Structures are given as C-alpha cells and as structure tokens.
C-alpha cells in the first residue's frame, strides 16, 4: 500500500518511504491494539484478583521502549545519511532564494562560482531580482531562473537563503524540505532519478501570497540539460 505518498523521484526517497511505511504500520498497529485491549477489558466481567503491576504495566512498557528505541536507531541512520555529510564536491551547485511569493534559482555558470549580491541592488523589475553585483567578475555568467532545472542522476547541492522573511523550500516528490531564513545560508542535497515536472511549495507562512508561492522542478536527460544550459 502506498499510504497516499506522491511519486518518489529522488535517490534517497525509497529508503525514506520504507521508513515511513514501517512507522505508519507499527503505529496503526499500536492504535488498534490499545483500542482492542480497552474494549475487551470493558466487555469482560469484573475481575478483582490482585493484579501484578510488573506483568501488566512494566513489561509492556519495556517492550514498547525497546520498539521505540529500535525505530529511533533506524531513523537516526536515515537522518545522518542525508544530513550529516554535505554533498559530493562534484555535485551541481544551485542557489535557491525565497522572496515574498516567488522562488528564484541561481546557477553559477562556467566559472562554478556565485557572484556577490547586495540587497540594495535587488531590482526584480530590471532583471536583477537577487541583487547580483555587476562589479564582481564571478557574477557575470550567473544565471537566474524561475524553474529549478536539473539533469537526471546528478547530485545537486542547494544553498538556500531568503531575501525577506522565513520561507519553507519543499519538494514533496524529492522528499526534501528546508526553511529559507534571511541572514543565513543552509545546504541540502539530493539526486533526482526520474524525469518529470514536480512542485516546489512554500511550507512556512510568509505573507498574504503564501498559498500561491510555488515553482517547478524540471528533471531532464543529461543531453537536454546541456542544451538548456547552453541557451
């Protein structure tokens, strides 16, 4: 059963989905068991026999503690695998910038270096929504896109920031979510493994246009991506 999760399009997604199904099955089982015990206990006749607290309470609690501990260890492995280490040095670099009600994606270009930005140069109307400093050599070939275009099978290292308030960068199909906080830069990384168009949402309330703050992740073949980059 898929438990209504959307399609999984990232390399780490399968392990995460397995963990999710496992946790949901265990917890549904516990929910059913608790209700069953309650209903059976209410249905059977009155029992006044001396009850052993060790057998009835401490033993089940120990078992459940072991269960929770086992789940925690598994979950911890998954968390450390995706978050403890940074991206591969060969990963593609893309900057994600949230601003009230739009997402921008900046590619560093041939030199693989992002140019400096200055808040006072931010002019979305004049084609410089991120305030890239024209005086900085590194920024000359930077490219700002309204779509996150990615080649299939290559790891991407996103540096996430915000121009104004806190936003939540979320791509359900890629199983990633990270807040964009003004004044700070956070990195997350993943590898897309299915071609297609996927939703980027904002998951942190950011103002009146929060509901419509969205963008598209477009995952394409390597050849197609090369053509897009050259354009």
């Amino acid at each position, binding site marked *: 059963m898929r438990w209504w999760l959307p399609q999984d399009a990232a390399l780490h997604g399968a392990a995460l989905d397995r963990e999710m199904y496992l946790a949901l099955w265990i917890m549904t089982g516990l929910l059913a068991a608790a209700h069953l015990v309650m209903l059976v206990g209410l249905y059977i006749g009155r029992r006044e026999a001396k009850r052993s607290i060790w057998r009835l309470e401490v033993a089940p609690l120990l078992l459940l503690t072991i269960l929770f501990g086992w789940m*925690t260890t598994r979950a911890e492995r998954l968390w450390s695998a995706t978050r403890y280490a940074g991206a591969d040095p060969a990963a593609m670099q893309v900057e994600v910038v949230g601003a009230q009600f739009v997402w921008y994606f900046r590619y560093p270009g041939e030199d693989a270096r992002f140019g400096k930005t200055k808040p006072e140069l931010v002019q979305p109307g004049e084609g410089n929504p991120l305030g890239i400093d024209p005086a900085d050599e590194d920024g000359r070939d930077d490219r700002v896109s309204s779509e996150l275009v990615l080649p299939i099978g290559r790891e991407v290292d996103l540096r996430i920031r915000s121009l104004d308030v806190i936003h939540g960068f979320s791509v*359900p199909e890629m199983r990633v979510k990270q807040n964009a906080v*003004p004044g700070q830069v956070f990195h997350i990384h993943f590898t897309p493994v299915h071609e297609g168009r996927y939703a980027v949402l904002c998951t942190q309330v950011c103002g009146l246009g929060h509901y419509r703050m969205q963008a598209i992740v477009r995952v394409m073949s390597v050849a197609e991506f090369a053509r897009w980059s050259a354009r």
Partner: protein
Amino acid sequence: MKIFSTHHRTIGIGYLLLAGASVAIGTLLSLLMRVHRVWPDLNWPLWGVMKPEDYLATVTMHGTLMVFFVLTTAPQSGFSNLVLPEQIGSRTMALPWLNAAGFWTTAVSLLILLSAFFVRGGGPISGWTSYPPLSALADAGPGQATGMDLWLVSVGLFCIASTMSGANTLVTVMRCRCKGMTWGRMPLTVWAWFTAALLTVIVFSVLFAAALMLLCDRHAGTSFFVPAGGVINGVVDAQRGDGSPLLWLHLFWFFGHPEVYIAILPGMGMTSMLLANFCRRGVPAYRWMITTTLLIGLLGLSVWGHHMFVAGLNPWAGTVFQLTTIAIAIPSTAKVLNWLVTLWGSRPTYTTPMLWSLGFVSLFVAGGVTGPVLAQPALDAYLHNTFFVVAHFHLVMAMAGVFSIFAGLTYWFPLIAGRQLDERLGKIHFWWTLLFAYCTFLPMHVSGLMGEPRHGAQLTGVAGPAGELLHRVWGVERHITYNAVMLALGQIFFFWNLQKTLRGSRSVAENPWEATTLEWAPVNDEEQVCHRAPCVHIDGVSVPQWIAAVE
C-alpha cells in the same frame, strides 16, 4: 454572586465562561476556514469574498484563542480554581488577590486580542507562532502593523496573568494542605495542576521576554530577531543590525512545547481520577503515576527543537531532540498503559464524565501514535508543516483537551450549579462529538501524506504542478469540511443540555458520583482532615478521604 470576587470558585467559573466565549469564537473561525477552503469564491453576507490575508488572520486568531484562552485557561485555571483548594482540604487559595488579578488580566488580554480584528489592516497573519521577520516588520503584510502589536500586547499580558495564577497554584499546594493530606495522598489532578503551574512560571516568563524583545524590534530600533539587509516590498531595511530569526524560534518553542503539556496534564490527571472512580477501584501504581506526571513536565522542557528539524539547526541537534522526544513518549505510554490496566475487567458505570474520559484515552492514543513518527527528523523533513501535523496536534491536544474539559464540566457541574447535567443529552452529545472528531481529523493524515502544506489560504488559483498537487487533495478537503460542520453542530446538544438543566430546580445528592476526593465532602465548620489516599474502594463501595473509620 459578586463578579469582582476573590473567591476561587467564582474565579474558576469566570475562567470557564471566558474559555466558553473563546471556544465559540475559535470554532466559528475554524468553520470560516473550512468553508473557505472548499468554496473559495463564496460571497459572505456583509463581508464579501474572503481574501488570503483574511484567511491567515483567521488562522492566527483561531490558534491563539484555542491554545491560550481555551486549552490553557479551562483545564488549568478554570478547574483548579473550581476544586483545587477543596481537594487538598483548604477553604481558600493561598493568594486570592493575586489569583483574581490573574483572571482579570486574562480577560483584558482576551479583549485586546479580539480588538485586533477591528483595526486597520485587520488581525495579524503570521500564525500563532509569529515567526519574524514577518512578525517584526509592519510592511511585511496586512495585519502586521497595529494588528500584530495588539497580538504581542495581548500575549504579554497573558504571560503575566498566567504567571500570577501559576504562582498562586504552587503556593496553595505547598502551604494549604489540610491535616493528613500528604504529598502521596494528593489526587492526581492536584499533581497535574501543580506540575503544569511549575511549567507555567518557567516558560511563560520566557515567552514574555520574547514578546517584549519583538516589540522592541518593532518600535525601539533593536534587532534581536531581524538580520541585516532584508528587502521588503523592494525597500532595503537599512536600519537593522544583525539579529537572528532562529532566536525567536528557540524562545517561542521553549515556551510552546511545554505549553501543550500545560494544556494536557490536567486532562491526564482528571482521566486517571475519573476512570478509577467510575471503575470503583484504586489507581494502580499511584506513586508511579505521580512520577510520570512530573517526568512529562520535566522532559517537556527539553524537546522544543523537534519543532525546528527543518528550521536550520545543526543536524546534530536533530538527533538530540529526537532522543529527548522519544524519551517523553515513555512516561506518556506509561500513562496510557495505566489507564488500560485500570479499565481491564472493571465493568464501570458509564456516566457521561466516564464516557468523556474514555474518549480522552482514545483520542490521546490516536493523536499520540503519530508522535514517534513526527519525532523522526528524517520523516519530519517530509511531514513538517503538512496537514499530517495538523491532524496530530488536533487529536492529541485539541480534541483530547476538549474531551477532558467536557469530562470535568459534567463531573463537577453539581459543584458549579447544584444540579446534574442531563445524562441522556450528554450521551448523545458525547457520541456525536467522538464520531465527528475522528471523521474530521483522521483524514488530515491523508492530505498531509499527499503533501498538502498548512496555512494555504486556498486550493485554487495555484499554477503548475503545485496546483495539480493541491487539486488531488480536493476530495479529502471537502470531506473534512462536511464533518467539521457536523462536529460544530453537535455542540448544540451541550447548550441545550445546559439551558435545560439550569432551568430545572436545584436538586442533587451530596456526593452524586460516590467520589472519594475532598471536594465532595459535606460542608461544615470543622477543620478538614484527610484520612487516606484517594480512590479507595472496598467491595465496590467508595471510602472517601474525609471518613475517619472504615468498618
């Protein structure tokens, strides 16, 4: 009855009425949201079409009203004022003036909060968590100017009020116990109010500091929470120093997580006592239940970071907060096991307070089981701020909390009004509410797993694959709205019951539930003495704490 009384029972009824008014408004706001999500183009009479900022103001006010003015005031301040002194054999609270000041400050705080609807720009739109810079900058959105200021003042006053009330509870429990009322004989309700009062004085002071700092950021030129170089509406904010929005998240959630235990601990205490009473048997492992109450309170202070797994903490913090969060699941599980052991083979009498307590257990488990799922940072990185979280806290805190409030109201109603609420209407009300509570909140797990984020003003008018994703949850959303309306309609049974009962004549047995705790002791001039632990029953007959000899 004097309104400006320092008598604790008057104050308790005052808190319950205040919570009643707040829950009525909060419920109306939630219905507005539910209807708007399904029919976004509906033209409301006298108001017109709901704008996105109206929706977000509604979300903010719904959350603030329900968490602060319902789930904190009714179980903690309302019921403790109603019966805490009597339960420990005292005639008064230790600090009646402070107690009354706490209530009236809460009332003023509520009025200030509600006034935010009527100022220019409307209510604040940043949710009950008010993350800066959205909450720090007046230009960040409608409602973020005067509306946000009023919200902060209201919350600040609420912090002062809660601290006064908490201090009074702590001193009362420590100093006013009657002869024979040892710590080990205190009812678990008193232990719960005591633990929640400890949490109150610790964490509301932190929230007060945070609210004050945010007000300073807004009006005194400080930069605790606002970083340099923000660009709002195309204007660079050049006045700012080097603040950190994450500092607010830490301070807020250091308050915010213990806050949910302040809301639910009294319900846990009431459930333990009521189940034992109607099963006519003792609470198994009484001292253990005292310990788990204190443990939940203590551990509750160390789990705030699980609200921040994707907020930008060091990933190592995710590991630490997962461990503390799983740790708090253990005393919570011990509580549930204890209730199940109490119920096993008990053949209880199914009075309405008993039904509400059984409902509390059911909902607490249903909402609780998703706790260890959300506590896993890797899974939370998918589920954070989706409807899955909304389902979780509405079951485990909101619905369980409301069920504990109804349990307390029906159980202690004879002490409030000298009459017993109608059992038949009460049972219809209970089953209706239980059914539609599940039908409303269980499906939210589904839309959350589908990826639907919280705080979306509408599902329509969104372009691209995001629009398609939201289109897929449309059916679930419609189902939730229908059931939410039914859930709200069912509350008419309660008001029907109230007016029917209050119109009837005063007639109630001295101890209608055959309870064992001291609030039901006959009133006389003699000094109260506690002779034994609560919930003592011999051959199914109650032996109350106030009776000296057991035959």
